[in-house]
């Protein structure tokens, strides 16, 4: 990036920079901005375009390496509902991940609030642990988590395996470190004076949290919620052993669909791509909906 940038002649830019207001905020000269933007969009969109075109093609057409379908058809989109069992999967995913998003964001806020505002022994260890927990490989945890969950059934008579809430508990916990971390970085930037007033009025910690902190932290809460949502949405490893057909998530349904081609079936590329797009759609929508807050929520001290 740097070499090409330096090589750009500077004359015209100098005069433009002098123009008032927003121009002062301009970070890049126009042509460079355009080049980078277009470059990145192409990088992203070419594979996406391929997915879209393939989903509108026939399975055979994709197998033959066509980029542009010789005949367009929406057939794959109708087929997948019976072949891939996506509707149950998407419903389950929305349900479990939606709840995980809300719960982990709130729990993360509460935990982060205590970690940011109070000092106590072990606080720093917890903070480090939050980052450290991200380094535990899922493949290591799979069997032990399963053993633990199933022993809840053996010893307490509570069925966890195969239920939605079992999956919910697992995802909530895995999402919690990062959710908390996002909240920690955000809450650090919140001026303390805002709560101080409430404290003088004698409000309880919980009141302060939900009346003052939560409304002020919505952008960050949205961010940590979305990350938690995505974690559950993308997981295949745990969902594949913790669910049964009725409680299967979209990712598992998709994987089952994609891998069950042993024994003489044709590759189902087109349906696969259609199913992938259908599964990705809710998440993309979610992002578009919350995009504005997403960025602000990652910024410490987003309230200015």
């Amino acid at each position, binding site marked *: 990036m740097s070499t090409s940038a330096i090589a750009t002649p500077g004359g015209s830019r100098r005069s433009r920079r002098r123009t008032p207001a927003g121009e002062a905020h301009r970070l890049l000269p126009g042509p460079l901005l355009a080049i980078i933007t277009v470059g990145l969009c192409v990088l992203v969109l070419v594979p996406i375009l391929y997915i879209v075109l393939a989903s509108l093609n026939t399975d*055979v057409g994709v197998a033959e390496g066509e980029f542009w379908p010789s005949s367009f058809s929406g057939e794959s989109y109708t087929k997948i509902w019976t072949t*891939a069992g996506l509707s149950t999967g998407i419903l389950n995913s929305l349900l479990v991940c939606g709840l995980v998003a809300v719960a982990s964001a709130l729990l993360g806020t509460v935990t982060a609030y205590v970690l940011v505002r109070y000092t106590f022994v072990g606080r720093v260890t917890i903070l480090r642990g939050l980052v450290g927990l991200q380094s535990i490989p899922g493949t290591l945890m799979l069997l032990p988590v399963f053993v633990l969950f199933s022993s809840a059934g053996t010893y307490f008579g509570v069925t966890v395996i195969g239920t939605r809430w079992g999956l919910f508990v697992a995802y909530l916990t895995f999402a919690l470190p990062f959710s908390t971390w996002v909240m920690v970085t955000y809450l650090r930037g919140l001026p303390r004076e805002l709560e101080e007033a409430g404290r003088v009025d004698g409000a309880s910690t919980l009141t302060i949290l939900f009346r003052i902190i939560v409304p002020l932290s919505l952008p960050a809460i949205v961010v940590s919620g979305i990350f938690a949502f995505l974690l559950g949405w993308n997981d295949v490893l745990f969902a594949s052993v913790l669910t049964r057909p009725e409680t299967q998530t979209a990712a598992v349904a998709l994987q089952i669909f994609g891998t069950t081609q*042993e024994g003489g*079936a044709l590759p189902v590329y087109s349906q696969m791509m259609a199913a992938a797009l259908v599964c990705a759609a809710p998440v993309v929508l979610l992002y578009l909906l919350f995009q504005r807050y997403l960025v602000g929520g990652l910024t410490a001290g987003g309230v200015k």
Partner: protein
Amino acid sequence: MGSRTLRAVVALAGATALTVALGACGGDDDGGGSGGGKTLNVLIGANTQYPQEQQDWQKSVSDKFKAQTGADVKWETFASANDELTKIQTSVVSGTGPDVYAIGTTLTPTAYSTRAFVTLGDEEWQKLGGKDKFVPSSLGISGPDAENQIGVPWVGRPFVMVYNTEMLKAAGIAKPATTWDELTQHAKQLTKGDQYGLAVAYKDNFDPWKFIWGMSVQAGNPIVDGKTARIADPAVSKAYQTYFGWLTKDKVVDPAAVGWTNSQAVAAFAKGKTGYFALTSALAAKSLDAGAVKGKWAFTLLPTVPPGATTRPANGVEAASILSGDNLLVADYSKNQDLAFQFVKLITDQEAQLDIYAKLGQLPANAAAAQTLLSDPRLGPVVEAQKKSVATPFTGAWADIQLALTNAVVQSIPDLSSGSISDAQIDSRLAAAQKTAQSSLDRAK
């Protein structure tokens, strides 16, 4: 960032709460087991090729079982052999899970080694209608010996070869190949222009070892000899040389095949430009009829004479296919074992077996049902292949051994692609596989 955010968040939370409530209701139904009747959990492989048909079949079996016993059947499915193995392991370790498992033949030894399944004594076989009910060869991988069987044969999926009848005719080949050398010879004749003689899925995670095992066993090397692995062996070496040679020396396979999985090889053959497609099953019929090759293909047995020979050596086995299909296993932790055996009996009876063939194309393991299929000329070779199927070694180490055999192919793919692989390279990979296999056998109990 005032009210709009808030509204969005509230809306999201509200929607979530609503769905959760809905889900909770659904969840109660799941767990309840309903009406005081018992529920039997059954794990079978998912079939994406015939999804609707599979559901129909499941429903008809459930209805029948309900009528017969008053109990419900709850189905679970697995996607692939890996998934299946994971399900077995997690159930075994926790002592909870399905009551009845439909387990692939090659995984049956693994399941046996966990000792978590009911051993079938005379009493159990009696409940099922006796051993005579089944095609004799299909019992070959039910247990290490006749006294210690755990698997009830359910369906067969013997491997066969499929060929393009028109291409063979055009090349003046009267009869499909019956020896591997003949197959190579035919494939050379058939390869010209945009045609290839043979379709092979080199990148499949399961196909490669089936070739290697077949060729070796035909040459008299069963790969596992008691507690000894025999992978670093001339017969195995020759098998790999032949298998790789189709691509590198004989050049009868599309070079893109180094990236093919089995389904891609099916697709390639279905285009009608390939003479033979080695290693497929009766299930491919639907796919083939969907392609350009429709009406121009036929099944035949895989060669049974090892590479480099015109007749099988005295100690060679006439293995047309690995013994392939599913066995039904009853979990020993199951609290519904009686029910489980009634279920197993139901789906191995003639009627249900013909039904599953009709709906899903799976070959019956029930002898009477299999007999009725012999009249279908197209299926003849498949039924014959089932009879001539040979069980892979019954050891808990087998999963590891087949992984090692496949791994030797995976690691050789770059060499295949570059057009040559030396015998020395093959042998060094086999030495590594031998080591893994032997250490796994040493651990076997």
